[in-house]
Structures are given as C-alpha cells and as structure tokens.
C-alpha cells in the first residue's frame, strides 16, 4: 500500500487531481487522529484536518522524502491544530454566545460524546497514540518513528491510554444507568 506512495506524491506534484484524492483517502484518518488528539473536538478536528491536507498539497514540493509523506503530513496537521487551539483560547471569552443544542443526543452521538469525554482525560501524547493505533491502525514501529519515541514507550502509552479510557467509559455507563 505504501510502496507506490512516492509515485502518488510525484503525480500530485504534477497537479494530478486523482492523486490528491487518493492521498486524502489514505491519510485523512491519521490526520484527523492527530488533530483530534490536540483539539479534543471532533468537528474542529475534521475542519483542521481538511485544512492540513490542503496546506500539505500546496507545500508538496517541500516534502523531500515522499516515502515519509505520512509523518511530514502529520507534523503539518499537528502545527495547524496547535495554532487553532491558541486561536480558540483567545476566543474563549466569546464562548458565552454559543447556543447549546437542546436536541436529545442520538445513540451514535452519545457514543461519540462519551469517547470524546474519555479522550479528554488523557494526555495529548496518550490521545495521539491510542487514536493513531486504534482508529487508524498504525503499528508500534510506525508510531515510534512518527512520534519520536521508543516502541516500548508506545506500547506503554497505549496500555495506559486504553486503561484510562475504559475506566472513564465505564464511569459514564454507571452515571447514565437509572
């Protein structure tokens, strides 16, 4: 799957629209996992992930190693998410103007909210590891290389993150039961 990545990146450099689409299909989930780990808000994370894809395509000539496109893209996504987080903190004073939804949450929306609330209890690095591993399917060697940590540390972070998430999710289940 990754063998043809350099070729795909070259085609995108030449402005091939289908290559842009294929790269997006392959990498959007990993980018989303990264932005969600930083932002903790799924809607914002999707918007920033989309922006990250566009920024990456515009700067594609700066990607010196097309075989490592994924890590390069993830770094762009992380920086954009951090910028977004800073801007959001500045706007926090206006948060009183937000209108909370009165719609009862659907079962899927409820699950999403519980997952997001449980993710919020983790550190950013733990969120990144658990999302990239369990949502996107990265292996520990891939995680270790991308995050600049050892494989042992990656396993440790995943174990701790899952344990904390299960604890938080079971707490929510107890709170919601009559």
């Amino acid at each position: 799957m990754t063998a043809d990545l350099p070729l795909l990146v070259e085609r995108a450099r030449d402005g091939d629209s289908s290559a842009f689409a294929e790269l997006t299909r392959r990498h959007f989930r990993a980018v989303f996992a990264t932005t969600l780990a930083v932002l903790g808000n799924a809607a914002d994370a999707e918007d920033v992930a989309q922006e990250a894809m566009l920024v990456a395509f515009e700067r594609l000539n700066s990607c010196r190693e097309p075989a490592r496109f994924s890590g390069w893209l993830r770094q762009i996504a992380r920086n954009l998410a951090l910028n977004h987080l800073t801007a959001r903190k500045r706007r926090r004073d206006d948060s009183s103007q937000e209108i909370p939804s009165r719609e009862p949450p659907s079962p899927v929306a409820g699950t999403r909210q519980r997952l997001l609330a449980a993710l919020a209890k983790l550190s950013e690095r733990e969120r990144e590891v658990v999302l990239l591993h369990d949502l996107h399917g990265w292996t520990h060697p891939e995680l270790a290389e991308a995050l600049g940590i050892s494989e042992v540390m990656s396993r440790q972070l995943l174990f701790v993150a899952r344990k904390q998430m299960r604890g938080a999710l079971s707490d929510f289940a107890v709170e919601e039961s009559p």
Partner: protein
Amino acid sequence: MNEPIDFSSLDPTTDAGFDQRVAEIARRASVKGVRPTLMTQVAMLWRFAVVGTAGAAIACWAAAAIRQPPIQPSASDALLAWAAHDDDASRATLLGSLEVRDER
C-alpha cells in the same frame, strides 16, 4: 483489558459525506496548485533577471542605433569634393565635416 477501543463512531472516513469531502479537497488542491520551492523561486527570479538584463541591453542598443545621426562624410572626402567642384554645397559640406561655422 488491552483490547482496542472501538473508535468507529469517530471515524470521519465512514461518514456519508466523506467522498464529497475528498472530492472537495482534491478540487481545491488542483485550483491552488503546488507552490514551487524556495530554490525554484530563486532560480526563476535569477532567470528572469538574466533575461530581463539581456533584453534591456538589446533595447538600449537598438534605441541608440536608431537615434544615431547620419554618417557625415569624412573631412578628406569633403576636401576632395570641394577641390573638384568648388561650389557652395561642397564648401558647406567641408566646413560641416570640420565642424567649423561658415562666417562668410
């Protein structure tokens, strides 16, 4: 205990609108295009500067050539012509070639 967490409800790629999102990203990326690297930009500027300088030099040379006054006959030719004809026209030509004002 260490089983994967089910994040499928958070997966944006399973949303109904994901294909539309992919198409939108590809469309916008195609419109924006891939920006050249800094080195490419410098090389392009350099080429522009070289071609521009050469063009300006050629233009200046052409302008100077157009504005150049008609070639005056040399003083010796004018002297010979005056000696042969001894008329006002050949005398004026001789004085002109010597850049002397006719005070006659």
